[in-house]
């Protein structure tokens, strides 16, 4: 894969000694959606800020589109759009002027048609002459996205785009991201909502304590680390699991009506066939079977726990 962003040994120590990034290495492929998952204070925002030029790295190099962010900052920043976590907007400015200002700041000639198109795409068309202070929180977030897109960036950073956003708007946001991906924009978003990463990301990176713990294809990650559970509903409740089934390490539900078997989907044998045979042999009558794949959330919680 060809990387559009390449981060090597990136370190950031703040005055006072706090080390927000402890040697981050990360390659981001052209056109992908990468979700960076991590708890509060993991270093997500610092990582983004450093790539965008808001924060100066203590050590390490970052290239965007092959340009170094320190020496070729004009070229790299030209490629990047940033949607910050906080709603940072000038309240007295109109939506259109605010977005047009961003375009000019990034060195692009005025293009009202383009700005209008972005505003329409983000359902802000009828609000373009409204003052920002008159908008709802969700609308303001859209304005931030419009500002980030105003200079036609090839890479878009979304720092917790759906924090504090209602369900409907979150779905809208996901649609917007999908649309941008279709246009070939590389998207890096941070989130602590696992379902967000699960819903839209191609790859998932987990960051905690200033270190990248893992970066992997979302489906691969879930397949590799995902365990499956088989839930067996039985006709007559059991008070204890028969000795003949002890090898399967079954979990019994409180009412004795369900047994749960955990297995690895990537293993050579799942043991399901023999389990079912043995269950029948033990005289248990099965009424239902159900399987459940562990979610990204389980994986994430497991990883973060391991490192703390």
């Amino acid at each position, binding site marked *: 894969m060809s990387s559009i962003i390449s981060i090597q040994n990136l370190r950031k120590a703040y005055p006072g000694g706090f080390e927000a990034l402890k040697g981050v290495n990360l390659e981001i492929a052209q056109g992908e959606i990468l979700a960076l998952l991590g708890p509060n204070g993991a270093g997500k925002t610092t990582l983004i800020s450093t790539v965008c030029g808001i924060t100066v790295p203590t050590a390490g190099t970052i290239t965007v589109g092959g340009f170094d962010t320190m020496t070729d900052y004009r070229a790299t920043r030209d490629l990047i759009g940033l949607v910050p976590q906080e709603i940072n907007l000038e309240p007295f400015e109109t939506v259109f002027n605010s977005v047009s200002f961003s375009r000019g700041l990034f*060195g692009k000639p005025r293009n009202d048609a383009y700005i209008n198109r972005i505003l329409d795409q983000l359902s802000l068309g009828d609000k373009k002459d409204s003052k920002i202070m008159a908008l709802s929180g969700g609308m303001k977030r859209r304005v931030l996205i419009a500002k980030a897109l105003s200079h036609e960036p090839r890479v878009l950073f979304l720092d917790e785009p759906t924090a504090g956003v209602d369900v409907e708007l979150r779905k809208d946001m996901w649609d917007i991201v999908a649309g941008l991906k279709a246009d070939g924009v590389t998207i890096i978003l941070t989130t602590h909502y696992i379902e967000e990463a699960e819903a839209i990301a191609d790859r998932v990176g987990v960051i905690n304590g200033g270190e990248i713990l893992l970066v992997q294809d979302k489906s691969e990650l879930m397949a590799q680390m995902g365990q499956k559970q088989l839930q067996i509903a039985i006709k007559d409740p059991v008070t204890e699991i028969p000795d003949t089934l002890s090898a399967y390490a079954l979990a019994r539900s409180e009412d004795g009506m369900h047994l749960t078997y955990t297995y690895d989907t990537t293993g050579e044998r799942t043991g399901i066939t023999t389990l079912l045979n043995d269950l029948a042999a033990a005289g248990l009558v099965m009424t239902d079977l159900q399987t459940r794949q562990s979610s990204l959330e389980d994986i994430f919680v497991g990883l973060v726990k391991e490192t703390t």
Partner: protein
Amino acid sequence: MNIYAVQTIYRSEMKRFFRTIMQSLISPVISTSLYFIVFGAAIGSRIQEVEGVSYGAFIVPGLIMLSVMTQATANASFGIYFPKFTGTIYELLSAPVNFLEIVLGYVGAAATKALFIGVIILITAFFFVDLQIAHPMAMIAFLLMTCLSFALLGFIIGIWAGNFEQLQLIPLLVITPLVFLGGSFYSISMLPGIWQTIAMFNPVVYLVSGFRWAFFGSADVSIGISLAAIALFTAACLAAIWWIFRTGWRIRQ
């Protein structure tokens, strides 16, 4: 050079000025008129002449300087402080712009606003006193230099300020006293001996003096020294701003 960015910042700042054009222009006109009534007519009628010029005319250069310096400082400091306050500074820091472009945009706009006000006051003055300008080109040059240098100073204050109180602090505590003690309404030669020496450490003395020379052809200090002083002040402000952006002081971590 990201010329679009400079234009964008400049226009956006000027738009703020024109949005409040009435306040921006009426207040200096009214306060100038008051100065002319109080100093020019009430007090001035008891003062014959200062350095061969009627007192009413004598205070015009100082009056313009007073407004231009405070306006340039206030506009530039607010211009860069406001994005810090609202958080929109992130955009400035992540945009492909360098320090010179940011300064040109913000300081250029603040200097332009101050120039507008200076010109308005000058026009107002013509209604009150009989005024001749001995060296018009020098007058314009001094006016421009003052607008620029004090806008640079304001920019530094805006970056330094952590809240609105601090934003007011320097103008109130430093600039206003320096301007009043800088011979805006009197000639330095009118001060008692020791104060004349002390006044020479006040940079505003050189600006007011040079500006007054442009009007009346005579001044407290020679025009060369005045020019050198304002050039030095401008250079010091530019160096400070260059250092601020190089180190990221108070703006980039």
